[in-house]
């Protein structure tokens, strides 16, 4: 059996079968948990290329699968991504409230995950855009609500993502004819422009960012946090694939300044927008933008350390976003309107959800003693050695974002005459408590994230 069959074909086939069980959400949830646990554990424990032994049964896990003249290739360098992606899926399935999130979440999330991994694995890598587009189309099927007219945010998401695909494919075509002749700079430059447009749309880089807050506003916060825990991370991994595969791009002198400028612009614009926006669902989108900005800055360091830092950053990033999405979903399920005004005094009605929201936002801002801080601190230290002016802009962006968080804090804890009470269910309190605990643990013991990716250190791709 090949690795692509296990981590790509199996979840897609399983999702197709599970679609017949949408009337049984609990069965679906348990099936999803079992499948994602198996896939996450296999990715963590089983090196690709070795024999997998289960009792007397032994299966040789090969890395490649051929399909219609093209191939899907998963190697040991992809094991970290596979573990991370399936662990993320597992976290979201474990915390899934089947009463507030549609049952189709389970099969569609499996199919989306499988397709996104296929986008990482497809060879030649230039075709990944088509698979990402297929995943995006399934995302829309997942988020459209039965009883509401779709908001413009969903249609905008569809339009933007559908425009990214031709852009990247076209760039691939230009490059395909030019791989051998790096001297044709005009054509290479036009390929870079098309790639840049496509990637900017995927990552919602300014000025292609407007769809993200609108999309976030239009859908359930839990679905948004799931989709955007995976999508930007996989987009970044695909971008790294592109950079590492195209030698002329990897050695281009303009790559570092371009990544730095784009990263800084993302952090600053997010800070400004986050400071003035009063909608918490949109703030959820800004947290994604902020993290993506920092991820690009990590890539811009252009060293092995930068790549390791990026890989480490995925863990607190996904945890914070999951906690924020879950806490917002708890608020939304209890009839709270997710705006600054609507959340006034929420601290007294839903104290644990409020804590979850605040801790995750504080962690994303990069406060000391929280999960994101050690990585952010390391990044800024390294960035200060090469581009100290960008630090001032980053500080400005973070200050703006912090203003938004402080404003929210004041609204959540605003005094009112109601008696404090706990309205969350035990399961919700446990999940939020665990999320908060992990964010603090990763902050107090920064070596934990390092330990988690240490088994994969030897296989992390070296870009520069």
């Amino acid at each position, binding site marked *: 059996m090949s690795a692509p069959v296990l981590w790509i074909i199996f979840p897609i086939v399983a999702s197709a079968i599970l679609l017949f069980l949408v009337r049984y959400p609990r069965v679906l949830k348990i099936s999803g948990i079992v499948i994602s646990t198996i896939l996450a554990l296999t990715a963590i424990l089983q090196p690709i290329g070795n024999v997998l032994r289960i009792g007397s049964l032994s299966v040789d896990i090969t890395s490649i699968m051929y399909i*219609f003249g*093209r191939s899907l290739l998963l190697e040991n360098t992809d094991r970290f991504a596979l573990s991370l992606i399936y662990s993320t899926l597992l976290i979201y399935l474990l915390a899934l409230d089947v009463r507030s999130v549609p049952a189709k979440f389970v099969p569609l999330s499996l199919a989306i995950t499988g397709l996104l991994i296929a986008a990482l694995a497809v060879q030649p890598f230039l075709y990944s855009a*088509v698979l990402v587009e297929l995943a995006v189309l399934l995302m829309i*099927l997942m988020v459209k609500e039965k*009883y509401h007219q779709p908001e413009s945010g969903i249609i905008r998401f*569809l339009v933007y993502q*559908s425009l990214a695909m031709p852009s990247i494919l*076209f760039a691939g075509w230009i490059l395909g004819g030019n791989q051998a002749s790096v001297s044709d700079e005009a054509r290479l430059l036009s390929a870079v422009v098309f790639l840049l447009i496509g990637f900017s749309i995927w990552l919602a880089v300014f000025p292609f960012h407007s769809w993200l807050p609108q999309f976030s506003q239009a859908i359930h916060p839990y679905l948004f946090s799931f989709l955007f825990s995976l999508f930007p991370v996989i987009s970044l991994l695909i971008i790294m694939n592109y950079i590492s595969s195209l030698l002329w791009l990897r050695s281009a002198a303009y790559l570092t300044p371009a990544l730095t400028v784009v990263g800084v612009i993302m952090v600053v614009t997010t800070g400004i927008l986050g400071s003035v926006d009063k909608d918490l669902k949109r703030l959820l989108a800004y947290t994604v933008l902020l993290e993506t900005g920092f991820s690009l800055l990590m890539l811009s360091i252009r060293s092995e350390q930068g790549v390791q830092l990026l890989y480490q950053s995925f863990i607190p990033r996904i945890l914070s976003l999951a906690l924020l999405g879950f806490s917002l979903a708890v608020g939304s399920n209890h009839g709270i309107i997710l705006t600054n005004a609507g959340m006034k005094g929420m601290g007294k009605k839903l104290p644990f959800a409020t804590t979850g929201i605040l801790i995750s936002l504080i962690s994303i801002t990069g406060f000391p003693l929280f999960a994101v801080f050690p990585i952010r601190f390391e990044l800024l230290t390294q960035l200060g050695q090469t581009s100290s002016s960008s630090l001032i802009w980053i500080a400005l962006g973070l200050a703006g974002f912090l203003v938004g968080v402080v404003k929210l804090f004041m609204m959540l804890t605003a005094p009112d005459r109601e008696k404090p009470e706990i309205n969350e269910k035990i399961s919700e309190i446990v999940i939020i408590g665990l999320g908060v605990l992990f964010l603090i643990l990763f902050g107090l013991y920064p070596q934990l994230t390092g330990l988690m990716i240490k088994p994969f250190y030897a296989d992390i791709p070296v870009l520069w």
Partner: protein
Amino acid sequence: MENWINYLSVVVLLVGLFWLQLSDSRKSIVIAYSVVVLMVFSINIQFWTFGFALSKLITAIMAIVVMSLAPDTSQQVEFRSNRTGRVFRGLGLAFCLLLVIFTLNKTTAYLSLSVDQTLPALAILFCGFLMLGVSREPFKIIVGLLTILVGFEILYGAIEQSLLVNGLLAAVFLLIAVVGSYLILPPETEDEQ
């Protein structure tokens, strides 16, 4: 042009694009779109294998059929534009076509394709972008997206003949239509469940 018959195809195609751009009713949009994809087929068949061109035609037709099967809610919501809007859209497309025609030699050389493919592809792409830019109705936006993909496939199909990639592109095409028709479905009421 390599074949004189293509002048006829391109003229009919341009008429189809204006028709598509100026149409407001679903029926008219569907017919205009079908005319466009038929003309694209008549051009593609000269450069691609018959099976490949036919599969693209069938995919495009199936997509628009899926879209047209979704219940029309425009009787409840008035989206029809006024005459000024139509003039604006018509002029917009005319300017785009002028741009395509004036830059045709350079773009054809850049893309290393024949004029017979470049002209229709760029005209369709611009028409699709214009539809995306000026439409508010979801149906027209989705048709705009499909139009862009039809234009893109003329360019991309000329250089990429891989079965997997073209199969996936066809799947994307159909899935956009399915998702589009799902999005424009009128919302169910709680009682209907």
